[in-house]
């Protein structure tokens, strides 16, 4: 991933270097063209590897989408087939009607959006304090926070359930959103990013009479767009895929989200793959759309914070 991300940069740099050396030597554009061609050829093994990795990454998606068009027989056939012999669009209708997916979709979109927005806001505030402000016990507090990431979620499930029940939040949207609005990973991610913003900026803003809060929203936030978009996507996808939490904290059909719906097709002695893959395909559409829209920012965010 990281290689793929960094690649355009390197091409640019190499191109510029070539350009400069070409001009200095006073040679013609034909020569320059061959230089670039040579450079590209040298890099071709890398491209081949990248293509192969891409194929491996795409294979499950390919299989999911093609299986979603197979007949029930073909989806279970042995050995499995790659391309459906006939397209069975009906799978999508059957899958959609198997559970209240319209409602699940609405819930998923609402819960994921609220969680992601809330998560970004709280992370921005906390990360700014950790990155740019000095206070007693800052590091201890930060490491304590990061330390909580090591507690497995399953361990907290029962105590969390008790808390939710005591708050009378069981079976409500609050239960699905509020506990996920604060998150350590987001604070950590943004803190790393905020630290790359030079302190001199704050110094000069201060001279102009800028308050901390205004500095945060008018300078730090706009400068950190890639990291914020990345965090938003992470939080959105995390919430979109959440299964156990939703299952445990709700009982009513109207409160449940897409992953719970996908479970409908997994039976005790087998799985209805033709329907499961159809449902999985329409369930992942919004995520793919969101990623395509935010792709550029997302890649920058990942590359600049050193995440993999």
């Amino acid at each position, binding site marked *: 991933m990281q290689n793929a991300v960094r690649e355009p940069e390197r091409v640019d740099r190499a191109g510029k270097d070539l350009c400069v050396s070409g001009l200095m030597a006073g040679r013609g554009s034909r020569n320059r063209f061959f230089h670039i061609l040579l450079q590209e050829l040298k890099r071709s093994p890398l491209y081949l590897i990248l293509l192969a990795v891409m194929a491996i990454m795409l294979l499950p998606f390919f299989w999911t989408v093609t299986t979603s068009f197979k007949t*029930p*027989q073909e989806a*279970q*056939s*042995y050995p499995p087939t790659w391309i459906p012999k006939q397209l069975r669009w009906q799978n999508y209708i059957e899958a959609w009607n*198997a559970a209240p997916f319209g409602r699940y979709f609405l819930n998923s979109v609402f819960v994921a959006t609220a969680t992601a927005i809330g998560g970004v806001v709280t992370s921005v505030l906390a990360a700014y304090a950790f990155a740019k402000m000095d206070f007693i016990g800052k590091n201890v507090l930060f490491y304590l926070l990061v330390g909580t990431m090591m507690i497995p979620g*399953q361990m907290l*499930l*029962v105590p969390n*359930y*008790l808390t939710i*029940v*005591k708050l009378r939040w*069981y079976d409500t949207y609050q239960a699905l959103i509020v506990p996920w609005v604060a998150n350590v990973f987001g604070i950590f991610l943004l803190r790393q990013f905020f630290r790359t913003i030079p302190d001199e900026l704050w110094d000069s803003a201060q001279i102009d009479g800028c308050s901390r809060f205004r500095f945060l929203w008018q300078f730090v936030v706009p400068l950190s767009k890639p990291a914020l978009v990345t965090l938003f996507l992470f939080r959105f996808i995390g919430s979109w895929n959440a*299964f*156990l939490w939703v*299952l*445990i904290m709700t*009982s009513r059909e109207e409160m449940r989200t897409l992953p*719970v719906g996908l*479970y*409908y*097709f*997994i*039976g*005790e*002695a*087998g799985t*209805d793959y033709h329907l499961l893959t159809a449902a999985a395909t329409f369930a992942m559409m919004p995520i793919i759309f969101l990623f395509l829209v935010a792709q550029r920012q997302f890649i920058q965010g990942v590359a600049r914070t050193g995440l993999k």
Partner: protein
Amino acid sequence: MRRTVIVLVLLLIGVLALGQVEIEFWHAMRGGHLETLEAITAKFMEENPDIVVKLVGQGGYGDLNTKLIAAAAAMQPPTLAQFYADWVAAAYKDALMPLDGLIPQEVLDDIPEKLLQACYFDGKLLTVPFNKSTLILFYNTDLVPEPPTTWEELIDTAKALTVDEDGDGTPERYGFGLRPYAEMFTTPFWQAGGRFFSEDMTESLLYSEPGLKALEFLLELKATSLYQTGYLSGPFGSGKVAMYIGSVAGIPYVARAAEGKVNWSTAVLPKGPVNNDSIYMGTDIGIFTLNTTPEQREAALKYILYLLSPEAHMEWAKGTGYIPFRKSAITSEEWKAYMERHPERVAVTEQAFHGFTYPNHPQWYSIRNVIGDMLEAVLLGDMTPEEALQWADETIEEEYLK
């Protein structure tokens, strides 16, 4: 006039709603199973307008268990839930309503004794069987005209049907399909006369004559088997595998995979040295005393009795493929007519009365995992049967029995 009617209707609904008892049933049913449960429940509510049964799906069994633990800890469990026997033994022995004396004796006498044994905890009847399945032999009728009835016949038939025409060492067709999971060992172990624990549950007795016999049988079978961890309905349906032993819950999947390709049927399990019993799999249903009113418990009992009634029970077995376990139901004309239309259910019905259950040990889930690991180690050749059985006994005793 219209307004008066509306007011009257609203009043009526209000009065009805006041007298209604609502009970929640937490389950792990999905797909066709859930549809059948919904249909039966709707009929129950029609006959009992004062009771509302809310069916709440809680995902898979693991998820249901997690949620039950959390809910019981919060003192907010549902009125009814599905339970595996080891869950009850581990956590709910004091939270469930004893059903002794509440379920009529003639109903209890109508259910196979072994199946009911797993519902007793410290001598109290805490649950009743709900969705039960057994293992069964699936066989390709194009290749196997008469199903094997003993272990020896099964091995001979499997050997004869394994074909490697091009001689590359990988057969084009296998006589048998073998998927390694604990029940693949425990069933032949029981069929050879094995018992899991000593009476006081302090000793594990896998390393024994029956244990060795079962493993040797499986090793011999494996030599002519397609050995894979995935479900076998696919390879069986395409004719790649001539026979396999699997859960009756797999029938709809086999039917789908085999459609238009191979003819098939089911048979009772081939007999081992002692019997041809199958493990009884699946869950039971029980009523919580915690956080429920006497009215709710009474309504829940009514619902359970309805589920056990021959009519609802037959509808359940037909719709889901789970085994019918009431003697009066399977001897009825209705069930006989049903079997005529569904010949694959004849063997299922017979097998339903030849089964055994696991000991009600709170750690059974983990113990079962040890047995599964032991079986895999033997089938993959990592351990000899003696080594594996001794290892399993030691592990089980040290970690779970002492």
